[in-house]
């Protein structure tokens, strides 16, 4: 009985290992990218800098979107907390787009993304007087790659200390 159970468990583990390793060898690159993207929103930490301990400086967006993800809202709540603790600090929210759009539309899209972040900070008690919005459109990518992962890192709103 006991032996049977052990065997069964071992088998399960073995099968699991086989399935996993098959995945890993087949789609190693794809898995790597998937671990950094959810849908086409960047979830990695490659380019992220920190305003303070545990306060990431940027949030990421899906293609053509300016909706804040759950992770983005969490980041912005931590930024709001940090701003409340440091009432003398003002910030610039720099909105960006990826290179797969027309220049003028991307300027507007960058502005819309930075404003999405601004609105969220304001609902967490940060005065609009402390926030400036600045769109760069597709002019200032962080990653110069021409691939979905690079584009996902470039679709962002970055909170920068203004003083």
């Amino acid at each position, binding site marked *: 009985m006991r032996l049977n159970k052990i065997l069964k468990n071992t088998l399960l583990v073995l099968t699991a290992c086989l399935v996993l390793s098959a995945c890993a060898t087949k789609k190693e690159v794809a898995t790597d990218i998937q671990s950094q993207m959810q849908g086409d929103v960047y979830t990695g930490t490659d380019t992220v800098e920190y305003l303070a301990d545990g306060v990431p400086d940027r949030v990421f967006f899906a293609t*053509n979107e*300016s909706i804040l993800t759950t992770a983005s809202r969490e980041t912005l709540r931590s930024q709001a907390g940090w701003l409340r603790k440091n009432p003398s600090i003002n910030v610039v929210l720099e909105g960006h787009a990826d*290179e*797969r*759009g*027309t*220049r*003028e*539309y991307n*300027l*507007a*899209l960058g*502005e*819309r993304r930075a*404003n*999405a972040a601004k*609105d969220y900070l304001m609902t967490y008690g940060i005065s609009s007087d402390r926030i400036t*919005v*600045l*769109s760069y459109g597709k*002019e*200032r*990518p*962080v*990653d*110069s*790659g*021409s691939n979905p992962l*690079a584009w996902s890192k470039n679709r962002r709103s970055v909170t920068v200390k203004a003083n």
Partner: protein
Amino acid sequence: MTKKILILLFILIPFNANALIEVDITRGNLNPLPLAVSPLSIDEESRKGFEKILKKENIGSEISNIVENNLRTSGLFNPLDKKAFLQAPDIANLKPRFEDWNLIKAQALITGKVNYVDDKLRVEFRLWDVLAAKEMMALAFTTVPNNWRRVGHIISDKVYERLTGEKGYFDTRIIYVSEEGPKTQRIKKLAIMDQDGANNKFLTLGNELVLTPRFNPASQMVTYLSYFKNMPRVYLLDIETGTQEVVGDFPGMTFAPRFSPDGKKIIMSFAKDGKSDIYTMDLENRIVEKITNHPSIDTSPSYSPDGKYITFNSDRSGYQQIYVMKNDGSDVRRISFGNGLYGTPVWSPRGDLIAFTKLHKGKFYIGVMRTDGSGERLLTENYYQEAPSWSPNGRVLIFYRETKTNAKGEGFSAKLWSIDLTGYNERQIKTPTDASDPSWSSLLSN
């Protein structure tokens, strides 16, 4: 900047009005018209005079080279090799021996001569119909010697107009954004050059980001976007004097500027609270008007040549599409219904077409459609290209193209390209640096 200098133009001899050669520019360039551009003849004294001032050994040949190059790049003409010419330039200008030109298959012949008269450059030229053995046109110009390139462009325009029945586009300039440095930190400057790439000049130093310069169709003014003091705003620049000013007093980013066809208004977008709407500002009385009012992104506005309508792109349907409205913002109609996203609509100076950028399945296209959205025609497909600008005669589009980088993110470049409305004759326009956001001027002489 270069001052506009009056070019005196005389009609030499009343020419025979029978149009015998006709070039059909509505078709492709599959059979460009063979023509001979005989070098402009020059007497020894004039040659030496110009050599001293202009540092060009033979200004007559230089001017005819400009004409030859313009006609060739139009894709409609095939200038023949000068080595095959049997008749000397000075004799040909007096009376061409048409059998000789016929023998080398030239259907048209351009001859002329250059004189140095009272410190001025005097150029006369004649256009001949070889098959009919007739003169089609004869003109003379007098101008300051420094204007010699423009004389070449004006001759090209006259020949183009006589042979196609439509105005030319050679005596024009292109304003664009010069780009240097890594993709993540591009240095951008305003630059201007003649339509053929000559006389390139930088208008800003590159201290701040500049984008989307556009010519005033009625003067040598330019409107563009500058990030001066990190505040993206629409500016007005006088390229003769270098004077600059901010357009309007908006509490946020203004962008995507263009002039109205009469040059008296600027139309642009103003972004606030995540919405971008279209505004105009009258340059005389400074009155600002809000034209669209929608929570979506409304941008890239462009007037129809009669000023009565505006085309723009908006994502009010959920995705970027092209719309047309009356100039007061009423009667908004969507006109793009094909697959994909549509942006950067620009109304043709002829009024019948709108050029655009289309993004579909990861490819970018430059295309044209009628102003009601029918008759969509895609002219060129690439990894990335956008922002078409029309030649003043509405026959050629200039735009920019960016390359895909490799796995390491290297190999990025941005270049200017042009293509005929027919979809033929795609060419790169050489620039000293990388380049984007081209805008074509009106004809300088008219």
